């Protein structure tokens, strides 16, 4: 996974609460077999009019936000379905970080599996950033994960909290599976000492249960 240490980029504001993952990547794209290519369809129903014509009113299509790599969002971002296609889309579009007052649980988890930083600021701070972003074309932010700070060119500084273990995953671009497999012995020991939980009672006639 691509590590995340610092990132500077253009901010795109998405001024809606409770943006759900169905909106980020609608169901028809859940039939794909790979993790790639979801950037083109991110926010599909908002972004495209019927016939895949770009909707000129949707923020992602405004020329001033072209090339944005930081997504500014509202509370409970990423609620709903567990689909990891949503963060795949966010990343594939080119966003490296999200800033919001809160995230839905599963989406938040999924971000860390994909090298995306979901930074949390207070609602007042996020409000302020919405104002900055909307009033100034080209408004950019610099995010520094080691010091957990976000800065703009005018000396505004915001601090964000992140669990140390999560921070480490992003900083080092850790592969969770490899880390967990270091505990293969503990897993085997667990399986031996918890037979009732970790074994399957097989029906008498397995063939019938296919």
């Amino acid at each position, binding site marked *: 996974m691509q590590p995340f240490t610092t990132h500077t980029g253009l901010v795109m504001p998405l001024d809606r609460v409770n943006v759900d993952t169905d909106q980020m990547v609608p*169901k028809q794209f859940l039939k*794909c077999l790979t993790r790639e290519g979801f950037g083109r369809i991110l926010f599909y129903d908002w972004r495209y009019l019927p016939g895949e014509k770009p909707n000129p009113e949707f923020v992602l299509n405004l020329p001033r936000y072209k090339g944005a790599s930081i997504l500014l969002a509202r509370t409970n971002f990423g609620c709903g379905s567990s689909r*990891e296609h949503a963060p795949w889309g966010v990343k594939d579009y080119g966003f490296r970080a999200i800033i919001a007052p809160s995230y839905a649980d599963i989406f938040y988890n999924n971000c860390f*599996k994909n090298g995306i930083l979901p930074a949390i600021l207070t609602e007042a701070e996020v409000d302020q950033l919405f104002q900055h972003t909307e009033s100034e074309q080209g408004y950019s932010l610099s995010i520094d994960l080691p010091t957990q700070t976000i800065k703009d060119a005018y000396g505004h500084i915001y601090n964000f909290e992140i669990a140390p273990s999560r921070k480490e995953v992003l900083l080092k671009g850790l592969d969770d599976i490899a880390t*967990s497999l270091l*505990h293969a012995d503990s*897993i085997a020991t667990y399986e031996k000492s918890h037979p009732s939980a970790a074994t399957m009672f097989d029906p008498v006639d397995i063939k019938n*249960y296919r």
Partner: protein
Amino acid sequence: MSPTTLYEKIWQNHVVHEEPGKPSLLYIDRHLVHEGTSPQAFAGLKAEGRKVRRPDLTFAVMDHSVSTTDRTLPILDNDAKLQFEALERNCRETGVRLFDMNSKHQGIVHIIGPELGITQPGQTIVCGDSHTSTHGALGTLAFGIGTSEVEHVLATQCLVQSKSKTLHILVHGKRPKGVTAKDIILAIIGKMGISGGNAQVAEFGGEAIRALSMDGRMTVCNMTIEAGARAGMIAPDDTTFAYLEARPFVPRGKEFQAAVDRWKTLKSDDGAKFDATIELHADQLAPQVTWGTNPGMVTSVNGRVPDPHDFRDLNDQKATESALKYMGLKPGTPIVDISVDRVFIGSCTNSRLDDLRAAAHLLAGKHVAKNIKQALIVPGSRGIKAQAEKEGLDKVFIAAGFEWRDAGCSMCIGMNADVLPPHERSASTSNRNFEGRQGRDSRTHLVSPIMAAAAALAGHFVDVREFDVAHVE
């Protein structure tokens, strides 16, 4: 020892490795897999040369994109076909048991887990699907994960987890007639809001929960995720044990008795501390109907569509405004004046036998209203379908003007041909009314199965308590 919650007990029993200040490695007893969120996980595993650690604890099923009509016909949707083929290949190569679309046990993943007895009290269960919370109704710790975590569980049979905060949801009193498990959970979500339970593990208790059948309890736990919670759970009791006895994957005879003795210890101790408690009185509840674009936008059937100005918070005002615009509704409209185009009874929330029986009871000898363009009943599994047909429910539905379909997710998500057309309005027993959920620009109202059946008969929402629901659960 200090009193502990059910969640903490199950957690403690599954810790494989822990270090201070770090998330724990938690053992996963059952891993459920469906065609939609697994191909990338299997591919990732293969690319790294890793194996499925416990294919015997992993179960796969085709549900999201399957046709609910004739499955002997060729699959026209090529993307869906490729996904089915990928799941088949992945299961064959790794030894994972697959209930494919032609299996007589096929059904929605969260329906067949409990139905086949794969789900048992005290287990940890995950699936690449947020409604995995359903399985908590049997006293398990069950939650949805992303595809990277699916890959992680395939490889290690474990998950990296931090302990969640706990929430006690107590539903006191008795449900009035016509008020179902669905109405209880919709009212809870309405009260908490859709992020009110964020990342917490909720345990449901109280008289009204205890009185629910297993089918009803699953409806409640299923939608816990819609309040933002990670998992919902209900301590197992005699209702649970009776439900599980003789199910295919449940041990028999002496082994079953031993299991029940173990399961009986699975409850929160008296005096166990929860981080928060919410209380509700079932006797004060009315049937619920959602009016907006998330499950928290809900009111009683005798209520009205709200005015954005009813809300003090600016974000709520904006959200309500855009929801009403999307839904094509005017503030102040009585819920019972909203007419319906299509009715969908199905999904992992409400497609179990209790749901079908209740709907059939209401529909018997009656016919859907003229303005209803389509009324669909999609049983949650082929097992449920077979049992319903044995009871003659299919005949009741068909005579009432409903289409009786094969098992799958269907119009809950519209990944197959069962899509709600643009600007049409549904009365749906599913769990999400997000924009575009049932089809682009479609308008979803979430209700209970009997409320959906009543809406089908009337052509608009109607208070089901006006019908004969005396024997309906």
